[in-house]
């Protein structure tokens, strides 16, 4: 851990983001079990309005979101406010969470990204229609597990990247969003993830046609 590499451009970041804690930006964590637990917690928030599960998600994602926002150039106080807004949206929009198409981290990241983009735009960016929530739809455990497995593969692939490649990805996904060019680092398994997500969407559309032909 002590040998973790300081992020490229950290000199610039220190000027704009004084509140980031010293130390490695990326920390080794047991991601394996987190993915399944967080998704379970988010489903409990969705289905049972489980406040304890929400509290755990807040404790896990709140500080990470704050780090991401400060890294992107936000001041400590604003980042704190946006974390509140984003996590409140997580609570309110939980009915739209579909574990066949995203793990909890992906879904929460998407909400945070949209919030950040809208803060920088003159007019909010139009959003696609939320996919319908179908009470009748039984969860497909195999598909949910398979998506989580892909999320794990992605995390493992990320951990094998050269530090400058990982930093390029963080820059593209966390910093100055309108000006960054997202350049894909080759070899990351996004293609499989895309097909998994399509399966989830297919399933929803199929069910929707069955209910309302």
């Amino acid at each position, binding site marked *: 851990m002590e040998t973790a590499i300081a992020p490229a451009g950290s000199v610039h970041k220190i000027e704009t983001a004084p509140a*980031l*804690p010293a130390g*490695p*930006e990326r*920390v080794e*964590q047991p*991601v394996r079990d*987190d993915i399944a637990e967080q998704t379970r917690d988010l489903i409990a928030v969705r289905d049972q309005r489980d*406040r304890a599960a929400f*509290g755990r998600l*807040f404790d896990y994602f*709140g*500080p*990470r979101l*704050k*780090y*991401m926002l400060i890294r992107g150039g936000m001041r400590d106080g604003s*980042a*704190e406010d946006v*974390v*509140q807004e984003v996590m*409140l949206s997580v*609570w*309110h*929009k939980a009915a*739209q969470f579909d574990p066949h*198409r*995203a*793990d*909890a*981290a*992906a*879904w929460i990241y*998407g909400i945070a990204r949209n919030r950040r983009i*809208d803060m920088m735009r*003159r007019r909010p*960016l*139009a*959003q*696609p*229609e*939320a996919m319908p929530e179908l009470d009748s739809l039984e969860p497909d455990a195999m598909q949910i597990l398979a998506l989580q497995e892909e*999320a794990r593969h*992605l*995390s493992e692939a*990320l*951990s094998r990247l050269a530090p400058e490649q990982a930093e390029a*990805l*963080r820059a593209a*996904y966390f910093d100055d*969003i*309108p*000006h960054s060019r997202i350049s894909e680092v080759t070899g990351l398994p*996004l293609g499989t*993830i*895309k097909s998994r*997500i*399509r399966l989830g*969407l*297919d399933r929803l559309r199929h069910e929707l046609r069955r209910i309302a032909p």
Partner: protein
Amino acid sequence: MSQIRHHIPDDVLEAYHAGSLPHAFGVVVAAHLSLCDACRAWAESRDMMGGALLRELAGAALHEGARARILAAMDGPVPAVPRGSAVFPAPVMACLGGQPPRWRMLGGGIRQQILAADAEGSLRLLYIPPGKAVPEHGHGGLELTLVLQGSFSDNAGAFHRGDVETAHDAIDHQPVAGPGMPCICLAATDAPLRFHAFLPRLLQPLFRI
């Protein structure tokens, strides 16, 4: 849903995901994503990457009381989820203010409603009766046209609900609506269209097309 064959170009999808697309194009992309599972899966796979990066990020300590603050806010009113209609997906419905289109006649049975127009570009709905042609036109820049009902074809092929035609500057094309339902499309441009026929050019300032 019929098979969507014409998608948003990758560079436009990238710009949408990065939040840098002007409003008019943003609405067309959001409407296409509402209908197209392939492009939506692309966008959601980007969030999987973002989520994986977020998970492994070090944290910045939240203020004392942050947890109590959010727990207190959770009982507030829940914002409504925007919904679309059978023809207009939610992002288009939002531009219409939830109302049916208020068409203006352009002649030849063709109708339009301007949804937005500013220095960055314009966004409008077009209604083309079956078999009718939109006057031949070129573009000063990029034009994205999404079919919402019916179909049209031109030299680039046939376009059905969910399909997007991407036209760059210097492409002249003359879309003709297919048989059956009137064709309704959503079109975004970053420059005024240049119609070649004499009359439409005179009308251009009048109708802001």
